[in-house]
């Protein structure tokens, strides 16, 4: 069955046009990832209008190319200029830039490229093996479970909120509200149109997304008048020859670091809301702790490049596991990809792999292929990157702003979409200025309609609300959701306040309840293990006399050099 699906996916993907478009996507991703100020999410969002006219496999394969390219593009500017192209390559600059300045830029780039490649391949293998297994669980889900799953996904907004939890939750709720404008999909009734004919159709998903994310980001880049007129190459970007052979051998020689960092990347990606911006720092930190020469980190150490670069590419595979197996976005990029599925009339859900196996396996294959393309195209893109970095920021931003308008209009051929882009561009920029995170709002926009549909289906089957608590999977996701909301607070106050000592124990023991309700030997053993874990945690804290240290610091123990 799996082999049949892979063969069918192979035929779908390996079409000359699709492969060519994927290559263009990888190059675009590499460039976008390389230019500081342009994020991977922005690149994926801006790719959407182009993919609208393509079929689902082709469109998503191109986006996959941009995603993988973007993750690797950040290393070019990070290593050559010391300015990370994306947050996912912040830790790469710690050792990449010193190595480049020490006269070995080609080797530093090679280490980055090959670590990215191997990290991507390791995560692709895990994606293909883990996602279908995880997706089997989805076949057990009922309406209530789906709704609870979406509610859990929405609580990810709490983790995406950053410093201010309330602002993040407000942004998430605003996203949900935006999704309710226009025709209700269940009854066909227009809502919140305020007498405006165009609003009766609701806001297009893409103009909202591009406005909130890309438009507002570009304006933030232009805010500083001096920087806006400056080009990136003033930071010192020069074309160099990548030392592939030597770098590949070095990366393989450091295979323990490579595998450990890739696994950190994959598991960070699986966790909702923990993306590559976290995994690269975590992997760097672990590599430094495990190293026999930690003092060399920050001075141009090989492990210091291998760890973050393999981790950030591996995160993509992890995020895709969550997206494809459960139908919920792991990060902002997969949220956009879920939006792309919706555009192609595919409703993301845990049955995605079983109901559309060819598309699912095409995505697996595309992820594999994109990593090979990234490896092959990085050397050529480097020259293009150096050329682009000579262009002044305001020129790039102005052209992309015009492209946003053209691309958005191309979606449905209606000028109202450009107005939507404009107004959400204003809103996104104001939210940035006032400190509201945008990611929760985008999650709300993507998941709003799906949540409403599942709630309607649940209530149509039975108006008994206790089903949400008596259905084991629903209870499982609601418990996860409840703990997920308080997780950022737990993270910030861990070890400082007494309640944080109980949090892991209560979490583990609460999860054991649905595990017992599900029945079956494996889940009952899992339930017992969860209780044991909880009890162990309580005994440990009891032995320590429930001691807390209000002055403890929970910030990552990372130092540059």
């Amino acid at each position: 069955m799996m082999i049949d699906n892979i063969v069918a996916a192979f035929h779908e993907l390996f079409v000359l046009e699709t492969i060519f478009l994927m290559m263009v996507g990888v190059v675009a991703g590499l460039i976008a990832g390389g230019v500081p100020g342009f994020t991977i999410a922005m690149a994926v969002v801006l790719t959407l209008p182009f993919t609208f006219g393509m079929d689902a496999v082709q469109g998503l394969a191109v986006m996959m190319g941009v995603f993988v390219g973007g993750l690797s593009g950040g290393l070019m500017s990070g290593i050559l200029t010391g300015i990370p192209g994306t947050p996912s390559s912040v830790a790469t600059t710690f050792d990449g830039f010193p190595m480049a300045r020490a006269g070995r830029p080609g080797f530093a780039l090679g280490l980055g490229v090959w670590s990215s490649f191997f990290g991507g391949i390791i995560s692709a293998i895990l994606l293909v093996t883990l996602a279908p297994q995880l997706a089997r669980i989805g076949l057990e889900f009922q309406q209530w479970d789906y709704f609870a799953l979406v509610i859990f996904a929405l609580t990810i907004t709490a983790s995406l909120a950053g410093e201010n939890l309330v602002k993040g939750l407000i942004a998430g709720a605003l996203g949900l509200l935006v999704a309710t404008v226009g025709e209700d999909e269940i009854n066909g009734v227009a809502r919140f149109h305020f007498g405006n004919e165009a609003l009766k159709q609701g806001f297009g998903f893409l103009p909202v997304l591009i406005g909130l994310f890309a438009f507002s980001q570009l304006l933030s880049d232009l805010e500083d008048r001096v920087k806006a007129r400056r080009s990136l190459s003033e930071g010192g970007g020069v074309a160099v020859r990548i030392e592939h052979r030597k770098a590949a051998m070095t990366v393989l020689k450091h295979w323990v670091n490579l595998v450990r960092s890739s696994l950190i990347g994959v598991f960070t990606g699986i966790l909702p809301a923990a993306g590559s911006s976290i995994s690269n720092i975590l992997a760097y930190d672990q590599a430094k702790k495990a190293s026999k020469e930690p003092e060399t980190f920050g001075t141009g150490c090989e492990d210091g490049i291998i760890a973050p670069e393999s981790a950030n590419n591996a995160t993509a595979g992890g995020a895709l596991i969550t997206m494809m197996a459960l139908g919920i976005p792991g990060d902002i990029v997969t949220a956009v990809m879920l939006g792309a599925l919706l555009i192609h009339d595919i409703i993301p859900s845990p049955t995605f792999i079983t109901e559309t196996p060819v598309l699912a396996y095409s995505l697996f294959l595309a992820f594999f292929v994109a990593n090979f393309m990234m490896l092959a195209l990085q050397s050529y893109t480097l020259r293009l990157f150096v050329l682009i970095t000579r262009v002044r920021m305001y020129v790039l931003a102005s052209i992309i702003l015009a492209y946003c308008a053209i691309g958005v209009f191309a979606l449905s051929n209606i000028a109202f979409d450009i107005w939507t882009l404009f107004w959400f561009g204003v809103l996104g920029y104001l939210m940035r200025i006032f400190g509201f995170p945008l990611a929760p709002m985008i999650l709300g926009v993507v998941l709003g309609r799906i949540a409403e549909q599942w709630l309607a289906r649940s209530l149509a089957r039975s108006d008994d609300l206790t089903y949400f608590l008596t259905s084991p999977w629903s209870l499982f996701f609601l418990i996860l959701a409840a703990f997920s909301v308080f997780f950022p607070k737990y993270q910030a106050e861990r070890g400082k306040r007494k309640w944080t000592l109980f949090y892991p124990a209560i979490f583990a023991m609460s999860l054991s309840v649905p595990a017992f309700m599900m029945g079956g030997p494996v889940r009952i053993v899992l339930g017992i293990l969860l209780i044991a874990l909880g009890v162990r945690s309580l005994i440990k804290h009891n032995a320590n006399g429930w001691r807390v240290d209000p002055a403890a610091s929970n910030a990552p123990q990372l130092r540059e050099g």
Partner: protein
Amino acid sequence: MSRFNRDVFIAIVLLLLCGAFLTASFHIREIDYGILTPAAWPQIILVALTILSMVYLVQSLRRGTPPGGATPVSIKGVLEKYRNPLWCYALFLLFLLTLDYLGMLIGGVLFVFCLLTAIGGASKRNLITHALIAVIMIGAMWALFTYALGVIFPQGEIFTTL
């Protein structure tokens, strides 16, 4: 210490928005084919948003302004600080308002040219460079979407009247 700060103002705007939408939600046509009426889900969201906005308001009021007082903000200062984004918005709005008349191609070229000149300066060399960039880049994009992707952009009344 003044209790009124920027966050208090935003929280009040959010509460007003919730009020407006809640009122509008009671005017949504009632159809009850299933259990969930068209107004139910938006009302659930709006109640949550109202509660969150109130929490935000209370938080902001408690925090107040810093002991030294808020830095006075003049309109001139705001215009100076946000000069480039304001140019972008103004020119984009103008582009949108004139879209039917100028069309996507002419409007797009003019938008990019004006924006480049507003931000990058209007020296003789810049004017030529900006004009070339605007014509080449927008022309290429317009051609790609029109001929390769088959998109029909607004042609502009200017062409029909000429």
